[in-house]
């Protein structure tokens, strides 16, 4: 692996240079929350954060996305959805858990007979440049689900904060192309690499939550009818925020939207936590109460997805734990399942 360094005060200039040749998406303060948005200069990006409130999934799988436009009355397709901008995209400042979330989303949208080309097209043009986590939060549990604060899965470049400068791990050819001939980068010393390794060990050790998840999926195989589900959903208010902030929730709704000057079929994020999600025209609902809906969320992440892809559809980012208005904690649910 190739190692470079870049001075901390040079990172914004580096982004400025990237902006000239590709679309750069980075954490920015938008409204009152930190989320990923396109930036036109390094100045706009925010690097002082633990993790963003919304995961970067909204870049590749937008909260609402036009599938196509049609002409009202004439019954004709006017325009198919295309990428909003051609060329290469760089998602800059992503955390290892979220990069791993994107690799799991890749698995899902490229599985089956019909691929979701709207997602895959955007993904194909996107490089991921991330920051290793030096200080994981107390809600983080990435190592339990198969990740790591210094995880490299999905990353093209991984930056490690060494104080005065960042160590830049060049992980893929795509990453190599991003830094090629960039005047801001220098070769790293052995000391730099050693320091990063030390930081990695410290970060991993500092994670307070360590869940026993080995055998969890197999255990859930026989638990669909378990009385546990009657208990764990009780305090849930069904707001669905856990699924909206989750980097590995990708269910959607499809609706037609008509305004004075355009008619579009769009897809929108949806959630299995809403009763309407599965309500049929006949009035029958296979998941009529919070119990079935909570069970669906947990089973899909920890059993159904695992059975198909041998990975949990959870990266341990802890967003659902932090954002839940009634302090429901998926870590507690996992512990309860394992102790049953």
């Amino acid at each position, binding site marked *: 692996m190739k190692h470079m360094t870049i001075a901390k005060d040079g990172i914004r200039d580096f982004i400025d240079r990237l902006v000239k040749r590709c679309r750069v998406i980075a954490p920015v303060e938008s409204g009152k929350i930190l989320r990923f948005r396109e930036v036109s200069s390094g100045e706009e990006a925010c690097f002082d954060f633990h993790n963003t409130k919304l995961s970067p999934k909204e870049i590749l799988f937008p909260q609402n996305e036009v*599938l*196509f436009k*049609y002409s*009202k009355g*004439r*019954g*004709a*397709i006017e325009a*198919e*959805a*295309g990428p909003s901008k051609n060329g290469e995209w760089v998602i800059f400042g992503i955390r290892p858990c979220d990069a791993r979330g994107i690799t799991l989303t890749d698995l*899902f*949208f490229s*599985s*089956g*007979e*019909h*691929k*979701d*080309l*709207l997602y895959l*097209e955007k993904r194909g043009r996107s490089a991921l440049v991330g920051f290793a986590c030096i200080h994981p939060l107390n809600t983080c549990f990435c190592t339990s689900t198969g990740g790591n604060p210094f995880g490299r899965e999905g990353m093209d470049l991984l930056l490690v904060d060494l104080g005065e400068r960042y160590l830049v791990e060049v992980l893929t050819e795509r990453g190599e192309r991003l830094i090629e001939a960039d005047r801001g980068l220098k070769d790293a010393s052995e000391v730099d690499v050693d320091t990063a390794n030390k930081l990695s060990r410290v970060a991993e050790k500092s994670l307070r939550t360590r869940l026993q998840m080995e055998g969890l999926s197999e255990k859930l195989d026989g638990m*669909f009818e378990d009385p546990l589900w009657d208990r764990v959903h009780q305090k849930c208010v069904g707001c669905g925020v856990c699924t909206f902030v989750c980097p590995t929730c*990708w*269910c*959607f*709704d*499809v*609706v*037609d939207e*008509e305004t004075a000057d355009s*008619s579009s*079929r769009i*897809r929108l994020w*949806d959630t*299995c936590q809403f009763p309407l*999600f*599965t*309500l*049929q*025209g*006949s009035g*029958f609902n*296979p*998941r009529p109460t919070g119990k*079935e809906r909570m069970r*669906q969320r947990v*089973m*899909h992440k920890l*059993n*159904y*997805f695992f*059975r*198909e892809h041998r990975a949990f559809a959870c990266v341990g980012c802890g967003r659902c734990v932090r954002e839940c208005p009634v302090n429901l904690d998926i870590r507690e649910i996992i512990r309860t399942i394992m102790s049953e």
Partner: protein
Amino acid sequence: MTNPYIPHISVLRKIKTENAVNDIKTFEVEFEDPEVARGFDYKPGQFGMVSYFGAGECPIGFASSPMDKGILQFTIKKVGVVTTALHNSLVGEKIGVRGPYGNGWPVEEMEGHDVLIVGAGFAFTTLRSLVKYILHEDNRERFGDLTVIYGARNPGELIYKYDLSEWEKSNEIDLILTVDRGDESWTKREGYVPTILEEVSPSSKNAIALICGPPIVIRLSMPILTKLGFPPDKTCLSLEMRMKCGIGKCGRCNVGNRYVCQDGPVFTMKELQEMPKEY
């Protein structure tokens, strides 16, 4: 890039009211592009995503037989936003159709077997596609005896009456019709579909049973089919689920690690026994 969500523009050619209550209609559509029409092939039991622009899109099983080239039929009950918009549409209007999706009835496995079809109410649509497919002169000899038990609440709610009267005259099919409550002109059987199934007791020897209907009919018919000796891997059901994409991505037809739109909608009893009871 091929966007999987783009429907084919299709023209409504005929609209036929199917029942006395006038909330079930059969829509005959034709693809606007003849090339699409030529390349569009499907199996009985598969479905299409049908859209009325401005109202949205929903999954509807093909009611026509794949042998009827050039046209597609969808029998649609007026229940929600999209189906109401379709019911209010006129011949000549353009709608969207994409597909075919799902696995369909196991036509290949049925060949060389006697076929028992049990249908109730409005759920008879893809079974009608299958009956028409089997009865087609190019196909009939590949299948054994064909027995169809079909019932509805009352005579006015039986759909495809024009087909039923043809089939009653035919030697190629044994059609047993029943209604929950007959009227003064009704001369055939009276009784719930599961009851009639038990009365008729079709043989399970070298036979495959296919069933589609409201959940209560399925629940009550399953033990009877078992008693008649139909093994779980020779009993097939078509499931109904809310769907938005039809291609295993939107997440709502998820049952266990299966997606009804992609892995179904037809499952054998054996497969269903291994899935969570959430359908």
